[in-house]
C-alpha cells in the first residue's frame, strides 16, 4: 500500500482489520453513562472509534454534543484518557499531543511505543471553526494522528443551528421556515473529505464512514491509525433530535443517506480512491440510487419541503453522480475536461 505515496512516512503500526463482526473484541473504551439522546449515532461512532483504536490511545474532543452530552463532571463514559479541547482546536490538539509524545520518546522521557492520538470534532468544529487548524495539521506529515469529524449536520449541542455541513433547505434554529421564506439555508453541504484529500497531498489516508456500516467504520479507523502521518475521517451521524425522527430510525437513515447517493462511502489511501459498500455498487451500476424523497420525508427537519424542493434536492444529487469528474466526490465538471 505504500507505493506511489507522496510522502515516505513509514507506517506506525499494523492494526489488522477486524475480520467480521464476530471477531470484534468485547472491550469497550467508551461505555454507558453519557447523556446523549436516545439513538445517538454520534455517540455510536465514539464507541466504535475507541473500540477500533484500543487501549493505547488518547482522545481529544472538541466542544460539541460529544463533549457536552458525553462527559458531565464526575461522570464520564471514557475508558481511555480523554480531554476537552476548544471548538476550533481539534487540529491543534492532535498536533500538540502527537508532538509531545514524539519528543519525549525521542529524549527517552517516555516509553517508545505507538500511541494513537485521535482528535474528534463535530461538523461545526471541523467544517466551520476548526477548518484552519485541521488544514494546518494535515500539512505535518511527521506527526501520527487521526482527526475524526462526526457530522450530525448542525450545531446540535446548542439546540440545532446550521453549520457549513448542513444540507440545503434544512430546518434549524437559525433557518426556521417562515411565512414568507420557506427555505432559509441556501448553502450546499461542504464537501469535507475531498477538501482535505485534494488540498493536502501529504495526507496518506482520508475516508468517509457511516455508523450504519460499523465494521467498515472501525476498520477505517484502524487503517487511519496505521498508515502514518495525519489522517482524516468524515463520519455521517444521523441525529434523532436535530433531524427530528424516531430514534429507532437512526440506523436506517444512515443506510438511506448512502443508498440515495447523498453520502458516498470511500477511502483515499496514498492518493488512490476506492469506493466501497453500496456506493461502489452505485458507481458500477450494480445498484440504482434510491430517490432522496425516501430519506428526506422520514425527517421532521425537511417536513416543510414542497415537491419543488425535493426535486431540486434530487437534481443536485443526480448532478454529483452524473456530471462530476469523480462521481459523488470531486465537483469538477467532466465536460470541462473534454473541451
Amino acid at each position, binding site marked *: 500500500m505504500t507505493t506511489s505515496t507522496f510522502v515516505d512516512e513509514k507506517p506506525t503500526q499494523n492494526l489488522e482489520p477486524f475480520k467480521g463482526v464476530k471477531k470484534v473484541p468485547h472491550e469497550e473504551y467508551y461505555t454507558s453513562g453519557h447523556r446523549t439522546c436516545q439513538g445517538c449515532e454520534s455517540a455510536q461512532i465514539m464507541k466504535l472509534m475507541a473500540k477500533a483504536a484500543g487501549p493505547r490511545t488518547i482522545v481529544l474532543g472538541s466542544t460539541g454534543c460529544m463533549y457536552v452530552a458525553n*462527559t458531565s*463532571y464526575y461522570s464520564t463514559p471514557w475508558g*481511555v484518557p480523554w*480531554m476537552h*479541547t476548544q471548538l476550533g482546536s481539534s487540529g*491543534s490538539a492532535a498536533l500538540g499531543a502527537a*508532538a509531545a509524545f514524539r519528543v519525549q520518546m525521542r529524549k527517552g522521557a517516555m516509553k517508545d511505543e505507538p500511541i494513537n492520538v485521535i482528535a474528534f470534532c463535530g461538523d461545526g468544529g471541523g467544517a466551520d471553526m476548526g477548518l*484552519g487548524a485541521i488544514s494546518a495539521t494535515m500539512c505535518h506529515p511527521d506527526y501520527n494522528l487521526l482527526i475524526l469529524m462526526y457530522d450530525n449536520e448542525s450545531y446540535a449541542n446548542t439546540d440545532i443551528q446550521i453549520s457549513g455541513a448542513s444540507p440545503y433547505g434544512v430546518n434549524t434554529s437559525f433557518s426556521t421556515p417562515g411565512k414568507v421564506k420557506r427555505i432559509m439555508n441556501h448553502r450546499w453541504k461542504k464537501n469535507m473529505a475531498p477538501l482535505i484529500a485534494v488540498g493536502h497531498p501529504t495526507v496518506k489516508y482520508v475516508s468517509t464512514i457511516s455508523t450504519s456500516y460499523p465494521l467498515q467504520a472501525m476498520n477505517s479507523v484502524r487503517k487511519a491509525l496505521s498508515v502514518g502521518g495525519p489522517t482524516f475521517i468524515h463520519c455521517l451521524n444521523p441525529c434523532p433530535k436535530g433531524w427530528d425522527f424516531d430514534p429507532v430510525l437512526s440506523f436506517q437513515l444512515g443506510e438511506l443517506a448512502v443508498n440515495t447517493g447523498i453520502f458516498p462511502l470511500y477511502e483515499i489511501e496514498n492518493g488512490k480512491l476506492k469506493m466501497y459498500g453500496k456506493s461502489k455498487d452505485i458507481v458500477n451500476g450494480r445498484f440504482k440510487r434510491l430517490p432522496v424523497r425516501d430519506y428526506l420525508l422520514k425527517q421532521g427537519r425537511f417536513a416543510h419541503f414542497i415537491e419543488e424542493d425535493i426535486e431540486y434536492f434530487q437534481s443536485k444529487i443526480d448532478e454529483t453522480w452524473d456530471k462530476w469528474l469523480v462521481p459523488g466526490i470531486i465537483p469538477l465538471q467532466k465536460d470541462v475536461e473534454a473541451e
Partner: protein
Amino acid sequence: MATLTLPVEEKKKSKINEQEALITGAEAIAIACKLANVDVVTAYPIRPYDTVMQYISQLVADGEMDCEYIVAEGEHSQFEIVKHASVCGARVFCGSSGVGWMYAMEALTVSPALRVPMVCMVGNRALDDPGAFGVEHNDALAVRDLGWLLTWVDSAQEALDTALIAYRVAEDRRIFVPLAISCDGAFLTHSQALVKIPAAELVKKFLPAYNRGDLLLHPDNVISVAPQANEDWVMEIRRQNYKVTEVACDVIREVYAEFEHTFGRKYGNPFFEEYMTEGADVVLLGMGTMSTPVKVAVRKLREEGKKVGFVRLRWFRPFAGPEIAKCLERFKAVGVIDRDFSFGSPDLSGVVATEVRSAMYSSSSTRPPVIGFIGGLGGREITVPDVETMTDIVFRAAKGKAQPLTQWFGLRE
C-alpha cells in the same frame, strides 16, 4: 524548603563555564529555552516577540536545541498546541504580542483551570487599531484576572534569569498554571546587551524535569479532563485556582532564593525592585524598561536634594499586595506610571495605579496619596524631563496640595 548547595569547586567550575554574550532580551529567552531543554515550541509571526522564535529556529537548525519546533497557522492554534503538549507531559514554550495575544485569548483563558504550566514570552505591543509596533502593556494585562502569573522584566539578563525561574515556578505542583514573561517591545526585545549565560549543568540542577504526575494525559493514566460542569461544580473549580494564587508568593520566594543559591545572582525582593528609596519622601512606581529613564531622573533629582526613589514592579500576578503596601506606606506620596490604559476605571487611571490604590486601601494604615501617570503608550518615549515633572507633582501631593489623580504625559495638546 529544600535548597540546593553546590560544592565550592563546582561553583568555581560553573563560573568558568559561565559565558558572556551581547544579545537581545528575546535572544536571552531563546537561550533560556535551550538551557531548560524545552520539548515543544510553537511559533507564529508578529512583532516584536517573534524574534525569540527566529533565534529558537536557528538553535534547532544548528542542532543546539532538541525540540519539536512547530510553526502554527495562527496564535489560537499556537497556544492550543502547546497547551495539549504540556498536558501530555512536554515542557513547552510559546509567545506572542499585541492582537496576536488577543487572537489566542480562548486558549489563554482555558489554560489556568486545566493547570497547564506553559511559559510564554509577551513582547508587549500596542493593541490594534491602529496597527502599531510600539510597547504598551494592555496586551499581557488582558489575562490578569484569568489565573495567569504575570511578570515584567527590564533587562536581557533579567529576561534570561526570569525564564529559568518561570519554569521552576510554573512547574511546581502547587502552581501548575501558565506564566507570561513580559518584555517591552523594542526597548528590550530588539536592543542588545551583555548577558551572563549560566552553565548548562547548573541549570540542570536548578530545574528538575517537568513531572505532570496524576494529571498526565497518557494511556497509562485513564482520566477525563475538563468534562462539562453545571452550577454544581464551577465555584469549586474556581476556588481550586484561587488556591494557586494563595501560595504563589511563597513559591516565588523559594525559587528566587534557590536561584541566588545556584547561580549567585541576587534579585533581592522577587516582587519589586527598590531604587534609591532609602530616606526618600516620595517614590515613583512602574513596570518594565521605563526603569531606565526613571532611574536616571531619580539620580539627577537626588543630586538636586529632592528625596525621591523608584519602585519597579516585577510580578503583577500574583500581586504582592501587603508587601507592596508595606513598602509604599513609608512614603508621603506615590506616583504610579502606567504604560497602559484602563478606560472608564476608577479615577480614569491606568491598571497598575488602580491595583496599587486598592492594595493600599486594604493593607496600609497611612494610605499616602497615589497619583497616576499615563505615558509611553504605543512605544512613545518616557523622557527624563517627563519623570522630573511627575516627581514635582508627587511632591506637591505629599505636601497635601490636591493633585489630579490621573495625568497623561508626552501627549500633544
